[in-house]
């Protein structure tokens, strides 16, 4: 409880409340624009939470995490293409494919360190990107339109209802936060955090670190795959762009922007990142210079400044004076 009353806790609660209230507020204002923006932002938040688990806490800088966004999305897209609309089958396929791919990618990449790990995760995700592009049956680089959303066969729960879809994403985000918090504080989390700071020492103490890091990598992939599944349902569309390496880069940016190895950082990072990339393009023309069109000129320096002045990202704004870095 004490933790929730800190500046950080109050900030986190207000952000969550804001997310919870967006559909109500926009319904009152007769606006259909904002729920869509927040849904996408929350999906990115889930993906960023999953990346933070391995990158922030586990020290595994994966530059290919969008791979799981794409795999999750295509698991839904391909099943829907064959007119299999059962949400349960979708969910099973998403988790199954992400687990297998996570195991393979993790097993290979976790044998390397540092820059090599970054390059291998990126290379493997790019391999999947080109593999998907090469399959004409599933739309190649045009992507796949998903005509029917995941149908869980429940009368009171249909993702075709915008509010149901919105709150499904909202509760998935809360679930991901809860799971991440529990994992980080558990024995398993101890091993992951310890291995991030000194793996040799962990092994000398008796931890076979590889299997724990691999498990963590797979868990992270599963959560991210779920984000991909949600995204496919929101967009009713999936394309290879979802797993392009630039998307992995954006995910890293969200985590760093929000604050690595902080629980709520990825959510803050994803929301700020997403809201700015919605807002800035709408900036007006000044003296004939179309600011909105060149919004990256503002976006880039902003991200740079945050990272220079707040090493631990947005989360550090809310840390108490004198708190350890």
């Amino acid at each position, binding site marked *: 409880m004490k933790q929730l009353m800190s500046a950080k806790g109050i900030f986190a609660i207000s952000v969550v409340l804001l997310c919870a209230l967006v559909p109500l507020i926009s319904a009152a204002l007769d606006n259909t624009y904002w729920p869509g923006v927040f849904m996408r932002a929350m999906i990115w938040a889930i993906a960023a939470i999953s990346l933070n688990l391995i990158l922030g806490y586990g020290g595994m800088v994966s530059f290919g995490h969008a791979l799981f966004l794409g795999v999750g999305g295509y698991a839904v897209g391909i099943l829907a293409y064959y007119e299999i609309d059962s949400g349960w089958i979708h969910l099973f396929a998403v988790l199954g494919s992400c687990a297998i791919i996570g195991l393979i990618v993790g097993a290979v990449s976790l044998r390397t360190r540092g820059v090599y790990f970054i390059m291998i995760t990126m290379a493997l995700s790019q391999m999947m990107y080109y593999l998907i592009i090469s399959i004409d049956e599933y739309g190649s680089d045009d992507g796949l339109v998903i005509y029917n959303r995941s149908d869980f066969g429940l009368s009171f729960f249909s993702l075709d209802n915008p509010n149901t879809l919105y709150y499904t994403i909202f509760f998935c985000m809360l679930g991901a936060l809860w799971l991440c918090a529990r994992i980080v504080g558990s024995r398993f989390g101890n091993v992951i955090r310890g291995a991030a700071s000194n793996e040799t020492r962990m092994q000398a103490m008796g931890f076979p670190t590889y299997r724990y890091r691999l*498990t963590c990598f797979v868990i992270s992939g599963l959560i991210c795959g779920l984000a991909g599944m949600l995204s496919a349902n929101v967009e009713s569309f999936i394309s290879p762009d979802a797993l392009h390496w630039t998307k992995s880069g954006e995910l890293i940016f969200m985590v760093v922007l929000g604050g690595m190895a902080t629980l709520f950082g990825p959510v803050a990072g994803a929301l700020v990142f997403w809201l700015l990339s919605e807002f800035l393009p709408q900036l007006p023309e000044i003296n004939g210079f179309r600011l909105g069109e060149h919004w990256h000129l503002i976006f880039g320096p902003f991200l740079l400044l945050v990272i220079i002045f707040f090493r631990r990202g947005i989360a550090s704004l809310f840390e108490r004076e004198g708190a350890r870095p």
Partner: protein
Amino acid sequence: MSTVMLEVKELRKSFGGVKATDGVSLEVIEGEVHAIIGPNGAGKTTLISQLSGLQRSDGGSTVFAGRDITRLSAPARSRLGLARTFQITSVFHDFTALQNVALAIQAHSGHSFRFLKDASSDQVLTEPARRRLADVGLGERADIPAGDLAHGEQRQLEIAMALATDPKMLLLDEPMAGMGPADSADMTSYLKSIKGQVTMLLVEHDMQAVFQLADRISVLVYGRIIATGDPQSIRSNKEVREAYLGED
């Protein structure tokens, strides 16, 4: 008859053309403090790393507590009761002193595939950890992040972590490294107090400490052991004086 705790035969390790460990054979008797001394670059840390399993050996065999551990990984050796400390302090800076020791205890209490239960309030880990910290004199400092501890305290913490799981044998890689004379004397007397309870292989540059603690000393020069014996005979060994002690 005294039993042999660690038996090393013809251990080898080369880095490129450099023979860091060149056929080292060594016996450590149960309960003794066996010191390894030698000039810089003699291969002492490499030897410790090979024994702890962190460096793969090119050849030779290692038997620990009657079991051939030549092919065992570092975690497996640790769980058999062969613990080590590091020359460069490698405690976990973001963890509190207590969490550091609790982590060491966790390593030896079953698998760690426990995802949801909070570990920091797990008394199975924290209670013994608290006792261990008190043993090395860090009881008051339990909740301080290890990174904020003084250097000497970090060295103590390092020992507490190695001892946390009641190892059969301790590989100590320069426990007094970087310590002032006072801290060094404290560490020596602490190690003296646990002498006999745990077998120790001690690599140390501080000769005063070595001669106070060691039952036997082996002298390592260029990856080879040139002499083994009790402190008195090592002190008077001509070859050793020439190779090493003579420098002082």
